């Protein structure tokens, strides 16, 4: 299984990949992760690759071979959706963050992002920020997204929840557990 997590630097994509890495090890799969540190973390476009299978070679996913694309931002979904397999899942957090060229009025944020995303056969928008705020804090947006991914891709809920528990700080455990369920239930 190949999962690509995309978003804007600072949105907490690294935690999501850590949870997925845990999920892989709990399900007995070999796993490789590839992340971005450094420059792009300053508000740039960031991407994390997660691969789990019996044998994994490359730490990054080849274009056209992504099973699940988790997009924390709509424009980033658009930027990366060509990485998806024909029947891959696109799970998008309904949130728009304007990049500097748009803020400055040099370029336009495409108005039809949603339509373009929906040209993907399995496309799901999740109002993850709102769901996270409802359970306590927008900080848990990433875990809401993972809950939705778990449900949409028929991953093992029990093991997934365990992976979340193992990766989040103890004092935010309850918040994140609620966030996970909220994401899961929102698409079930």
């Amino acid at each position: 299984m190949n999962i690509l997590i995309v978003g804007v630097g600072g949105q907490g994509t690294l935690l999501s990949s850590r949870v997925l890495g845990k999920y892989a090890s709990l399900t007995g799969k070999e796993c490789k992760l590839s992340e971005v540190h450094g420059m792009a973390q300053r508000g740039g476009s960031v991407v994390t690759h997660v691969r789990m299978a019996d044998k994994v070679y490359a730490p990054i996913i080849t274009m056209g071979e992504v099973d699940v694309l988790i997009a924390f931002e709509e424009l980033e979904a658009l930027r990366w959706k060509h990485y998806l397999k024909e029947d891959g899942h696109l799970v998008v957090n309904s949130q728009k963050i304007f990049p500097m060229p748009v803020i400055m009025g040099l370029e336009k944020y495409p108005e039809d992002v949603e339509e373009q995303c929906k040209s993907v056969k399995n496309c799901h928008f999740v109002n993850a920020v709102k769901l996270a705020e409802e359970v306590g804090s927008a900080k848990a947006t990433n875990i809401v997204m993972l809950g939705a991914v778990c449900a949409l891709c028929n991953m093992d809920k029990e093991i997934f929840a365990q992976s979340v528990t193992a990766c989040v700080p103890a004092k935010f455990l309850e918040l994140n557990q609620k966030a996970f369920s909220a994401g899961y239930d929102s698409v079930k």
Partner: protein
Amino acid sequence: MKKLMLTNQAIAQGAYEAGVKVLSAYPGTPSTEIAENAAKYPELYAEWAPNEKVALEVAFGSCVAGVRSMACMKHVGLNVAADPLFTGAYTGVNAGLVIVVADDPGMHSSQNEQDSRFYARSAHVPMLEPSDSQEAKEFVKLGYELSEKYDTPVLLRTTTRIAHSQSVVSCEDRVELENKAYVKDMRKYAMMPANARPRHVVVENRENALKSDLKTLNGVNKVEILGKELGVVCSGAVYQYVKEVLPNASVFKVGMVYPLDIEAIREFSKNVDELLVVEELEPFFENQLKANGITCHGKDLFSLQGEITAETIKEKLFKTAMPVPASAPVRPPVMCAGCPHRGVFYVLNKLKCIVTGDIGCYTLGASAPLSAVDTVLCMGASIGMAHGFSLANPEYAKKTVAVIGDSTFLHSGITGLINCVYNKDTNTVMILDNSTTGMTGHQEHPATGKTLKGEDTVSVDLVELCKACGVKRVSVVDSYYIGEVERVIKEELNAPEVSVIIARKPCELLKKGAKPVAEIDNCKGCKACMKLGCPALVAGADGKVSIDSTLCVGCMLCAKVCKFNSIKLVK
């Protein structure tokens, strides 16, 4: 115990297991996490040095004194540390020394994509290159064995894709080593012509010995004979892509990048109809093979630039058409909302200064709309270049400002400043002191008062330091008070001697807890605030600006430039 580990963490684990006692490093993507992880082992002393040259000298000192040591840096850091590297190849070691150098093909976070393998060759130092986290750990340990057996420093090379990928590592126990006895030996350790000449002979003999032992080094290079049609020579991350895209090809996986086992590759090539070298950046393997009469393909197919990925191999070998991306506006990195650097560049842009810039978060002052930076070369270059501008045209001294970060100033800006004073320049230097090494993820440095291990320590006083360099005009301003920043810059540009302005305010990301938010009431749409390039300010279709409350941290810089007093703090 098996664990999913970042390769940089696995390198730290390898150092721990190998009994390393001293690690010195300067941060640099993608190498930074090695030292950060090493610092977590109580048995291993790890420190931030002010620059890579010092880090390597420290590691040399410790290894000569008898303990296994490590120095870590990014590729351009090895340029800074090249001086001790080349002569350290002559002295050799006592206990083992491994130098980790992390290359960045594709320039994810760098100002160039030089190929460090050439350092191994020109300094005559062996170099290993792993393909995943587990192998990185094993190569660290092998590196120490080779270092001690052949009495040489050993380079370990990674690239961004290896350094920043995670895979499973099996952890083992640490070997606790007795310190080796230090015996004074000037002919070995005190390099001056009479001693260095015989040491150069040693270097050559050592390399020849290692070359003839290569075939006995089991498992460093791996040969996988599969199909007969194609044989691929590759290393590092590229090996993984080759396995992915060419599952039937025979592969010679190079683990020892230098010296290259040319004879083994010649043997390998006899098993296959065609030999292909797939390597990122320079034709390092290819040229050596060709020079030794081995026919192969390589850079006739692949570029010297950027990364090679599975897609590249598919495109070049099978002409596979890749899916076309949707058109989407780019999302370049930006200064964070609340970044103390922003206001300084706003003023420099307004004053139309020539800004010789430097490397750090503040390099983003070159991006629109601030667009305030003229040059970026390498760490520390801002001050030297400003002096060069003054020399070329004395008029430039009245409008040139060298802008440098606190960590970068301590890394290699001080010598440039001394040069300005010594050679009677009249220019202006600004140190943007945000109390951290921001760009690489907030590391401590000699002016933060904390060590890598988190202990309290002396903090270098930048004001006193500049004064001690001979600068009489040193002023300190608060980066958020842009009116004052502007006044001081104007004043210092006109001063008939070198001046230093320290613009001080801690990095916004260091502040924890709830932050205030600004709000715009009755925006007139003049867009004066949009010149700040703040990601929290968004111009709507109606031309009016609003504030994104999820990003705003209430720095109120926008309020200071608003002509209509429309921006207020809400909470």
